């Protein structure tokens, strides 16, 4: 399902690119249909990978959070569908930080150990907006194609 990753990755890496065109959406849709034959498990994993970035970014949009908090929230709000372990989650986090979409800072509160809080950067805000649009279009396309045929 590399197309999925590439689709959304293309937004994250160069957000200044032109906004997704209907063609790309259609392309993604076609690939999605093809990938049905590869297997649900593979699909799930790759989709998870491609969409996690969007999830992380959206969760730190309102206020800074630390790593455990983010992963817990994702797990809760997806009702257990998306679960992460240490080895898969933190590399994603660091990657986003390296790209400059989120910034991590050690914060020490009274009576507590220091924790690393991540907040969204200005660049990250833009990327988040683009990714949201991308996913909205995608979902619409999927719904249109796979929706029940009306007689």
């Amino acid at each position, binding site marked *: 399902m590399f197309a999925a990753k590439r689709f959304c990755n293309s937004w994250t890496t160069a957000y200044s690119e032109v906004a997704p065109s209907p063609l790309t959406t259609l392309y993604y849709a076609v690939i999605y249909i093809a990938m049905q034959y590869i297997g649900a498990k593979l699909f799930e994993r790759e989709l998870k990978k491609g969409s996690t970035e969007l999830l992380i970014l959206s969760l730190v949009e309102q206020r800074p959070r630390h790593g*455990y908090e983010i992963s817990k929230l994702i797990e809760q709000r997806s009702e257990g569908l998306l679960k992460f372990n*240490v*080895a*898969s989650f*933190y*590399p994603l986090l*660091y*990657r986003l930080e390296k790209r400059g979409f989120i910034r991590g800072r050690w914060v020490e509160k009274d009576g507590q150990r220091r924790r690393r809080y991540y907040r969204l950067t200005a660049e990250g805000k833009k990327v988040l907006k683009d990714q949201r649009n991308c996913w909205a279009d995608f979902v619409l396309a999927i719904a249109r194609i796979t929706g029940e045929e009306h007689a």
Partner: protein
Amino acid sequence: MPDWSEEIRAALVGLNLNPAQEASVADELAQHLEDRYDEMRHEGVDDAEACRLLRSELNDGRLVTELKGLLPPVSEAISPGQDIRERLLAGLGKDLRYAIRMLRLNPTFAAVAILSLALGIGANTAIFELLDAVVLRTLPVQSPQQLANIREIHGGRIGNTVARQKNFSVALWQQIQQQQKGFSGIGAWSTETFDLGRGGEAHYVQGMWVSGSFFRTLGIQPVLGRLLTENDDYRGCGLRAVVISYAFWQRSFAGRTDAVGSKLSLDGHPFEVIGITPASFYGLEIGRNFDVAVPVCSESAIRTESSWTQSATTWWLDVIGRLNAGWTLGKANAQLASIAPGIFAATLPPEYDATERKDYLRFGLKAETAATGVSELRAQYADPLRALLAISGLVLLLACTNLANLMLARAAARQREIALRLALGASRRRLIRQLFTENVFLASVGAAVGLILAQVFGSVLVAFIGNSENPVFLPLYPDMRVLLFTVGIASLTCLLFGVAPAIRIGRVEPGTVMKASGRGLAGRQHFLLRRGLIVSQVALSLVLVVAALLFVRTFRNLVSLNPGFQQDGVLVADFDFSALHVLAQNRADYKRELLRSVRNIPGVISAAEAAIVPLNGDGWNEFIDIPEQGVSRKLVYFNAVSSCYFQTLQIPFLAGRDFDDRDIASSPPVAIVNEHFAHTYLGKTDPIGKTFRVRQDGGKPDRIFHIVGFAGDTRYRDIHDEPTPIVFVSPYQRPIADTDSTFIVRSNEAPASLILSLKDTAVKSSPEIVLNFSVLRTSVLEKLTRERLMATLSGVYGALATVLAMVGIYGIISYMVIRRSGEMGLRIALGARRTSVVGIVLREAAALVAVGLMVGTAVAIACARTVRTLLYGIKPVDPLTLIISIGGLSTIALAASLLPAIRAASVDPIQTLREE
């Protein structure tokens, strides 16, 4: 709850993070795990189970791989230095790139090194190419190893040699052709210059006489038309067919195909061109090219009077043959030896007397390998070229010592780096290999540039050797031998200048070097190498300077030699009037008439006719007897000259009278002799009035000559010859007069205008007279080309060697001074005068130079003896030359050491002591 940070650190160890970053990541991950642990405990999972789950999460291996690209490591992993299983050529590319980078950082050093290598290798390669072309290259014919030249073995012959080829007469050639068995094909050939025009100034082409079987024997195929065959060469063939060379075809016919079938006029006789030889065939003489090939049988048609074909005593043909399959040279020689007596008996010249007959019948035949052709050029230049190769080899050696010194200096500067690398585990072998890669790279670039320079230099050399009268045709190209030579000397130079620093690397002790101060007070032993370099440089340059002086003085001796007459201001004009067909009895008067008109030209101071122009290379000798003095059958040089000959050439006339109008064909034959003749054959007596007899052919009575005059000595044939007895007779008293007159004209006018006046005079008499002009001084100088070449090149090399030695000595002494500047500073601080410091340095330099001069003198004396044959008028071990060379070189060497010595003395003692 276990301490997760320890386990996390253990998991992250492969990332090689810096401590702060490691702590940060470990902290963050530890908290995550703790929170998870708390959550699981909250859910009711027991301690052991929770820990197990979390540990499996941590250690699933993906953590490190995922984080690897994200977090920067603290430093690059150090790869181990000493890999015993390392392949020999592993990392060669890296070595090369490193070498190129090092040289780019030191552009001056690279430029100096490459330039000196290119010049040295280029000069050597050019001379080797020339040597290869002249001596080693085989003929461009089919299977040259099967070819053999047949020669005549004789003690001394009576007769005429008229061409460069001197072995056989036509009669002998025909006999050999009939009776030989050892060769599948043999051909006879000779050379001649033909005049293409009809009258006026001659336009000569190089001609080759060939027998019918010549081209077949050599396996030459025509490029157009056909070549001469046996059917074209038969007695009485007259003027029929000729073959032209490719070069002549391009030059005169512009490569047109209608050249075949067109007419060509040779010496006024018409021939038809029937074919063209291929571009690769230039004849059998190295250094010459032919234009026209004419059948031998046409010679009697071209030269109607005194044809060489009819004469049994004119030897003008060389014979080349292809050995039969299975026949060796020895076998062929045996067969030739068996037929020789019969052949010589059958061709005995009828005009010979008894002694001459006996000698002739003893002549023999011999076959020798002809793979490399014959060559006057080779005979003249083989030895000089070998000497020049040796000289340029020495210059290259000198350049290499300079390079070795430069390399040593660089190696010394990099000592700490090398020690560090050794300490960190690099193998010595690897370091030496890296050094050699650098050297090989330098040598390769130098050799490549040198090869290009060699082509330029080679063509300059060829142009130097040739001249208008004797153009040299020598195509130079780098064939396999030359390339191997170049690669060979490049490798040798590389080895020479690379081996010293490599040894140094081998001896570096990392511990000692690192502990020592910045400049490194390494022991005095490494100066030994440098001292050896100075000694060898001085010795080499002394040898080269001595050689240069010897050759230059030889040339000067020859050029300023007094040949007994005044060369300057003399023009030689040859008037060939054979086309006029003047009857034999009228020729003497016609010649006198011509001489008179030449003398009447305004601007002519004096003019005379001479059969032999002195120093021209021609010769004529006869046997004389003087019964009264007991002189019997002595061979003496002759010349036929008109009146005013001695006056024109300003030869001192010592006694008696010159030739004049009294001496005609019907009056008694008179002669003028030179001093040498008088002393040799007439003793202390006055030569005037004495007589001598000249034998005649065919049993005719001796001609008795009366000596009427006595002149000073002159050189005869060649400027290298010693003075010899010469007899001068009158051309108008000769039994048969020639159909050409050679005039020697002295005038103050420029040669160009004089030539025009002479042309006018000739045309007034008849436009069909063929003319040829040359300036006497120029012709004589052109004969000294060999010595001029040696003098010029060895002079240039000698100067180059001196410069190289000076630069080298300066560099080495400077280096030694810098090394010892601490010691000098100390001395000055302790009260030594600056001049004494200068003295210390100069004394050391002087000692080294003295040793070098001694070694050099010994080598120079040994080498000079080997080139004895190339010298003239100077002994190989000439004291004056040695003294001048030694004096000059020691002055230069000491001057080169003076600057560093002064710098040593002007060192600031406080500064140097501080640095200690």
